[in-house]
């Protein structure tokens, strides 16, 4: 069991966590917050050579076919982002639940399947599935319901072949509504399994 003083060591701990988060967020391939007005041609020149000048980009193997960017290039674009950018664009779509239910509907299963496919493509991604609830339940019981929702997504992903080590579940109950509204449309958005990439 860890003991620490609140005033100083706690703050230091918070800083360490913050530093770790920043390191994780920017790890490997840092991307500037605001894109530099970088000269476009230079960026293009680092990409595979354009078809109009095959000789210049002749690979050592001297093969006829050009190195045409195929499917992986799409993944390069995604993995070139910071975790924050990645999560902001949410490549992993949320699944939604019925009232007071943690069952995955057919529609939710389809979304989970698409997310599983992305996880198979991006084999290094580690994710957290957040369980969220609408405000109609109590603060306390919703912690259990959110836990149950996140766990149900995790179980389904594992059944689709995603390694259990790559999925963490966290219940937020009704603490973080996505839509502050008080109607069913808002409630429906808040009853969700929300995917966050925590490592890549």
């Amino acid at each position, binding site marked *: *069991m860890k003991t620490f003083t609140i005033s100083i060591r706690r703050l230091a701990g918070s800083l360490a966590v*913050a530093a770790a988060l920043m390191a994780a967020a920017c790890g490997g391939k840092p991307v500037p917050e605001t894109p530099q007005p970088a000269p476009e041609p230079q960026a293009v020149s680092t990409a595979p050579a354009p078809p109009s000048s095959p000789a210049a980009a002749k690979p050592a193997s001297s093969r006829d076919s050009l190195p045409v960017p195929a499917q992986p290039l799409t993944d390069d674009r995604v993995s070139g982002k910071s975790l924050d950018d990645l999560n902001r664009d949410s490549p992993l779509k949320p699944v939604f639940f019925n009232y007071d239910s943690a069952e995955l509907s057919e529609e939710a299963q389809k979304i989970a399947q698409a997310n599983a496919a992305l996880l198979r493509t991006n084999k290094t991604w580690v994710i957290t599935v957040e369980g969220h609830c609408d405000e109609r339940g*109590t603060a306390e*019981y919703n*912690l259990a*319901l959110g836990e149950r929702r996140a766990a149900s997504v995790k179980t389904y992903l594992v059944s689709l072949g995603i390694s259990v080590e790559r999925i963490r579940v*966290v219940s937020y109950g009704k603490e973080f509504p996505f839509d502050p509204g008080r109607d069913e449309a808002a409630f429906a958005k808040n009853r969700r399994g929300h995917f966050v990439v925590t490592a890549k």
Partner: protein
Amino acid sequence: MMTTTRWCAPLFLLALFWAHPSAFQTAGGQRSQPSDVELAISGDSGTPPRFAVPAFVAAAPDVEDAAKVLGEVLWDDLAFEREFYLIPRDTYASVPAARTADQVPFAAWRELGADGVIFGTVQRMGGNLRIEVRLLNIRTRQSVFAREYSGPSANPRGLAHAVADELHLQQRALRGVARTRLAFTSDRNREKVAGTTENRDVKEVYFADYDGANPRRLTVDRQLNITPVWAPDARAIAYTSYRRGFPDLYIMRPFDGTSTNPTAGKGSNFLPAFSPDGKRLAFMSSRDGNPEIYVMNVDGSAVRRLTNHPANDATPTWSPTGTEIAFTSDRTGSPQIFITSAEGTGSARRISTNESYADRPTWSAAPFNEIAFAARTGPGFDIKIYDIASGQTRQITFGEGSNESPAFAPNGRHLAFTSTRAGKVQVFTVARDGKDLRQITRDGNNYTPSWSN
């Protein structure tokens, strides 16, 4: 720290003080019967005694503000338990001011209908305030309570609270709550959670005096911190924090400046509840797959699973004897309140029978032995109280906003809870009969109160 010392001016029945020292004990707030019934001021046949609490007498101009605060806070504290009728302050103008105790105009107070009047003085002693307080019996013109206190000059409210608790104990053999505190979480700092792309408000743990004064922030995580609960010694608070990205239990000792993490990241852990002896915590964890109730020692050792059901088991609370635990489960469909043995033996019995949804049980001690909970009554929730002895349930709030998260005061006479009736989510207190509603918080949203001993 506030100190109290016996004050013994010869004019005021010195003998009484020495004859009945038990009536003046402050330790532990245990019930003790005044051994001399003559000390207790009674009202007219069957009505509560009528007390007047004017502003204290300031020994110098630099304590005039404190003198006013002392009178006001003591008035509020004595009104809170509703054991006395407090004569409204705005009627005191007709009574000539007294500079000393022997100038107190008994006849004028009698005309106002007072059975007892408080006479208090305050002076500055270094960084402290020193006050002398007497309760005078208007009929006998005798002092039935005379005490001296000193405490930090920054907090005259604390001095008034100490007086109120001792007066309730001496006059009514009642354990007052004037020196208790409410812990809760709040988003009042309007900070956003760090390390997430979502726009999420942090919640930090705070505590305040029972009346909402002196709010103090305890956590500085810029994270989500929820469901704080006081330890029985009122010196530690257990809560759930997401400070490491997942929900885990922490025990903070704010007066010692230490904190521990007894569950140490083993699974997701929520909703801690101290046993009445303060040695164990009940909590909800999904470490074995689905939400279940567990019990452990406060140092994290001897973890034992209490429930074993495929349904959700949540929100544990201890019985005052520590032998039983009430909790919420949806094992019969919707969330309902159950009671089971704290040893995990036997089967759980359901006590909420006519509710569509019930959660957050909180259990009061003798003499009431009641379980309050939040019950769905429409689009929102209301507070209801289940009486163990009779098996009857009564309603305390009636659809004004949504009312959740009840927590009993240590004497079982009051509840704190949250309500949306004032717009945002705020902490309120109410007497166990549903009367005397008071708004405690006003800044930001405030959640899940816990009432200290």
